[in-house]
């Protein structure tokens, strides 16, 4: 038993060496940017009082005292924390569901396009918004929604309506934000599903067609089941960031308009607004520690539940 194990290990090591080398840049990146900075979590529990001219590590661990959960108190002091948490979860759940459903549907539809050139154009058009920064998206949207010079209000006025003060009318913004968010992210996630669909064995489709399966049957009995592992992978990855939100979408796109705060304020936006003037790094760390901690619990829970459901493919995630 031992002998066999060692032999397999030796062979695996030789075999895996190449793979390890290929993934080395990613591993190094993770160590440098995700694991090494983790000591900074201590900021959240320290009353950080640096002495000028001393090293950061010394300032953090020697010159600052532990203060328990004091740094978290600013989060509970806010009277609209429940609204902020609701917004964060509301948008994230919608993006979790729609952010999977929309690209999957689009990817399936795209596979039905047979003209190569047209397919390329459609893919590019869908992918392009992903590369725009939120600041630019925010101002493009302003071009549409500006009260005076905006395109939408011009059209509304032509139709005889008075026009809307968009940036002062919160009721429209849940929809606007969800639409903008999806518009920007869909193309990119779609590429992932498109790849997964391409790798499905073509013979499955051929034999299904021979057996008389139509488009819907093929989608239902072949494409979706084959896509499931990818979908689950993405789902698990997303669920870990359920308390994080896309800061650009919620801060830049509404142009930080005060009236819209009730529907645009997510945890990240709140923390930014609260700390922008103070530069209190212990507070920011406390907030991001909380997000990461809850995210980690959610991720592990989702992983365990899905593994228990017997889907072996997700275990590899």
């Amino acid at each position, binding site marked *: 038993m031992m002998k066999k194990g060692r032999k397999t290990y030796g062979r695996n090591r030789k075999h895996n060496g190449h793979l390890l080398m290929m993934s080395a840049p990613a591993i190094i990146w993770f160590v440098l*940017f*995700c694991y*090494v*900075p983790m000591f*900074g979590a201590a*900021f959240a529990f320290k009353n*950080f*009082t*640096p*002495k*000028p*001219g*001393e*090293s*950061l590590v010394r*300032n953090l661990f020697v*010159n600052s005292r532990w203060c328990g959960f*004091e740094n978290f*108190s*600013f989060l509970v*002091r*806010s*009277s*609209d924390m429940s609204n902020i948490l609701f917004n964060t979860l509301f948008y994230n759940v919608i993006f979790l569901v729609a952010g999977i459903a929309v690209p999957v549907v689009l990817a399936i539809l795209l596979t039905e396009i047979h003209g190569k050139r047209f397919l390329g154009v459609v893919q590019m058009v869908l992918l392009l918004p992903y590369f725009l920064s939120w600041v630019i998206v925010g101002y493009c949207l*302003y071009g549409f929604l*500006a*009260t*005076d010079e905006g395109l939408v209000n011009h059209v509304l006025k032509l139709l005889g309506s008075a026009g809307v*003060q968009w*940036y*002062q009318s919160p009721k429209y913004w849940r929809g606007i934000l969800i639409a903008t968010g999806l518009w920007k992210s869909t193309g990119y996630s779609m590429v992932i599903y498109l790849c997964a669909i391409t790798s499905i064995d073509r013979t499955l489709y051929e034999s299904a067609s021979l057996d008389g399966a139509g488009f819907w049957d093929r989608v239902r009995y072949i494409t979706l089941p084959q896509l499931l592992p990818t979908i689950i992978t993405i789902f698990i990855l997303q669920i870990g960031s359920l308390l994080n939100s896309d800061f650009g979408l919620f801060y830049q796109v509404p*142009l*930080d*308009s*005060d*009236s819209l*705060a009730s529907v645009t*304020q997510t945890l990240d936006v*709140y923390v930014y*607004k*609260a*700390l*922008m*003037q*103070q*530069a*209190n*790094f212990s*507070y*920011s*760390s406390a907030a*991001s520690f909380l997000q*990461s901690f809850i995210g980690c619990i959610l991720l592990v829970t989702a992983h365990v539940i899905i593994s228990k459901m017997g889907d072996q493919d997700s275990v590899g995630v």
Partner: protein
Amino acid sequence: MAVIFALCITGCASSSAIGKDPAGGDIINLRFVTYDNGSVPLDAKEVIAAANKVSAEKIGVTINLEFQSKEKINLIMASGEYYDMIFTSSWINPYDKFAPAGMFYDITDLVKSETPALYESVGEYWDCAKVDGRIYAVPTLKDMGAEDMFRFNSDYYEGKKGMTIPERMDFAQLEPYLAAYKDDFPDKYPLAMDKSGVAGYYNCVQRVVDPIIVIPYGQDTPKAVPFWECTEIMDRYRLLHKWYEAGYIHPDAATIDSTAADKTFPVRAGVAWKGYMGYSNPADWGFNVKTSVYDGPFLSRSSEQGAMTAICAGCDEEHATAALKYLELLAIDRKFRDILGYGIEGKHFNYLKNGTVLRTATGSERYNTKLYQTGSGVNASVESISEDVLSDPDQWEKVYEGYRQDGIYSKTGDFYYDPTPKEDIITALTAIYNGYAAELRTGTSNPDKVIPEIKARMEKAGLDELVSDIQEKLDESLRK
């Protein structure tokens, strides 16, 4: 996390060095961090090299001057990074937070013994730098009180409309000017307004916890109150809302970042001092500009702390002395002061015959710093805006004379509030305030509707606890 990592990278820098000067003595090089006011001047390196040549010869000190953003300065302070001199004030890198925390060098005795001329030059303004009687920074002599003004297109108002623009006016007196323009151009908005509001409208109060807790001027026994209990501020918010409704202010003002590019506005606001010509160059605007002061000058600890230079608490005495010597040279040697202020003579600026300076095109483009960023404003030559429009070379004497005569002085003395113990409340209040601020100051929202809302939310977040703590400290300080 990204912030924390940035801290790790920047946290361990040290840059003070000692070199040999040609004459054989030691030259001390100092890291001088100043506020960049939005951008780093392109020719900074060249100008600093020119200044270093002079200062090395005169006092054996050179500087490595860095123009840094507010965020970067916050980071330098928070990570305990080493510097020799740093910009501090009531609005960037808050002095009253860091000086009591022991972040700055105590220069009380050193400045008297090593640089008596510097000590002499600052005079009565040392008071604004005192924390329990000790001094931790050198106040920069510049405009020490806030004078808030409206800037009018005088070609339009005086020339075309025949209206007069008085030297002083009330905030409310602006209304007919706005109305006149709106009548002529119904599609335009007369009052330039972006999300930061009318420049200087808030200077009529002393800000203790900026901008939520204020102390109005002119009270015999100063009281700290939330801003909505100050009638002056509330009246302004009501007026602005009225103007917004009347169409004098752009409907999206609360989301507009800057109106600088649109030169058509006939009314803007600004904060400056008597004799300041920077707003008045017709070449910049395409019309003649006339200013009218609507507020001030207000003088308080916080206005006098508009710009200061502090020395790092981690410095040894040699470096601290060198830093003071450098600041002294800036405060007494006008030619040297003009280098850091305006650049290299002949390239970035020229002296005019009345002793004022005129920036060249290169200077305006490649080294256009504000004087307060690099040292004394009073000791620098006064800037003219063209060869025809000369400034008064002795303007500062008049400005300071004006403070003595018309100045509205705070009665809180050397009171300061250290925010550290109540920081969690302040953070929560700031977040609430930031959810209303832009719409209040642009007139977008109706103050009588939103203030009760703000009040209720702030009270829940611990406002009363904060106010009574401030009042307690204030009373204690006044008793001394």
